[in-house]
């Protein structure tokens, strides 16, 4: 069954100048139809301004389609009555770690979602504990978020979403403002969610090394889905990715260069190990 499905999704917004006159209409998402299965790990790639974040915000009913439909867990996101159910089913983590933590203590922030859902006090505590453990932040439960590193703050935000028991979690460029160590922490936490808790993960990013673990990758450009496939299928199209303002891991690029020079190497090499094998070493 698909947990998220979009059909002919279009999102337009009106640009206005300083006096409020209409300057034009921008189509941020253009005719996107896709279907994501329960339990998938999906990566959505794209350069800045490709429409990937706008697409993501539709899954959490923060934005509504101009045309077309989005279903989350079978519910139409435009249906006002289902609004809170949609938001509970599809949690969202945003880019800036500082601007999404509400609580002044880690555990209180994680409890914020369940409080809003009206979960009984005793169960909130259970959920907070299990969520913080799932992202490896339990020992920090009494800390102030201001004292945490970027990666830790993002893990707290992820815990805050898990505590709402969603079916699906959308991570909207969660690593864009982090250092490499923080990025690894967050990706590790997201993978654990997918493996252990079987939550569907939709990871929006422009870091290529983060998509290697995905089952399926969508590459966005100009509001459309420009490429779709497994990471290997995506990475085998080095030239196309460059056109889309993206790059590939150095090992993939090296393999690509060697192939162009006439060596017998398959497309879409993802690791050093694979390259060594391909070279017969």
């Amino acid at each position, binding site marked *: 069954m698909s947990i998220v499905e979009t059909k002919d999704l279009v999102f337009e917004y009106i640009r206005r100048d300083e006096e409020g006159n209409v300057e034009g209409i921008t189509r941020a998402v253009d005719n996107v139809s896709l279907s994501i299965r329960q339990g998938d790990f999906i990566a959505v790639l794209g350069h800045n301004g490709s429409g990937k974040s706008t697409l993501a915000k539709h899954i959490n009913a923060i934005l509504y389609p101009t045309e077309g439909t989005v279903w989350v867990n079978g519910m139409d996101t435009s249906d006002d009555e289902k609004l809170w159910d949609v938001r509970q089913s599809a949690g969202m983590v945003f880019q800036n770690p500082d*601007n999404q933590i509400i609580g*002044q*203590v880690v555990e*209180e922030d994680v409890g914020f979602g369940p*409080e809003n859902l009206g979960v009984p*006090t005793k169960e*909130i505590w259970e959920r907070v504990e299990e969520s913080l453990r799932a992202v490896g932040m339990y020992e920090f439960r009494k800390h102030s978020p*201001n004292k945490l590193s970027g990666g830790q703050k993002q893990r707290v935000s992820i815990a805050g979403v898990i505590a709402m028991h969603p079916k699906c979690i959308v991570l909207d460029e969660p690593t864009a403002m982090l250092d490499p160590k923080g990025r690894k922490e967050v990706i590790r936490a997201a993978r654990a969610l997918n493996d252990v808790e079987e939550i569907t993960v939709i990871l929006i990013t422009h870091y290529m090394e983060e998509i290697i673990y995905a089952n399926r990758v969508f590459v966005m450009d100009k509001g459309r889905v420009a490429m779709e496939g497994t990471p290997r299928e995506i990475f085998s199209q080095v030239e196309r990715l460059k056109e889309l303002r993206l790059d590939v891991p150095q090992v993939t690029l090296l393999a690509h260069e060697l192939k162009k020079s006439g060596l017998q190497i398959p497309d879409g090499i993802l690791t050093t190990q694979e390259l060594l094998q391909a070279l017969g070493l």
Partner: protein
Amino acid sequence: MLRDITLGQYYQTDSVIHRLDPRVKLVTTIVFIVSLFVVEGAAGYVLAGLFLLLVIRLSKVPVRFMMRGMKSIAFLLVIAVIFNLFLTQGEVVVSFWKLTITKEGIYYAGCMAVRLVFLIMGSSVMTLTTTPNNLTDGLEKLLGPLKVIRVPVHEIAMMMSIALRFIPILLEETDKIMKAQIARGADFESGNLIKRVKSMVPLLVPLFISAFRRANDLATAMEARCYRGGDHRTKMKPLVYHRRDLMAYGTVCAYLALCIVAGRII
């Protein structure tokens, strides 16, 4: 620079005062402040002083920390004392130049000083032993009945706690923007008033833009986490009175009664 300022000067330790319900602490603080203005005479002040001393000892907060709050009111204290000292009419004790000090003046100045010091210390005990969050919760609950007359108590409390969360972040941001503009040759320190006010523009514009962006992001994040106001909301840490809280209320009542009695008799 700016980030050195800490708001909500909570002192982390474990004491019976720390564990008290914030409502008890709020009520006690109010009662204590009122008592300072009700009591008359030395006996009353001794009583208030003893009560304060007891609470401070129980709170395990070093007196040094209490004194910190004093610095900020030192100026006010001096002014109040001077006014009372020189401007009170009565039996003249000393007189020089155009100034006279009267017996009553000394008495009132002394009272004023004691009151102010007690007042600040009393409220410091509350802020030092209660996290800002807890305090907000306490206020929300205490003011709860006002909802009946359509005071948005929950919203006010939520705003307070968000403000408390973002103040350190915005202070840090101010520091950063300031440094960045100084690196571009901005000068925030010299010049006359008008020049200085003008020099704040490169700091304030980015700061406001950033604050609005953060507010916008936060609102979206809260909505995404199903926030829809105070109705139907449960609490992770609901305020529940324990035995110690009731005992504390009892103590406060006893203190108030003693104050009234002391005022009458002596």
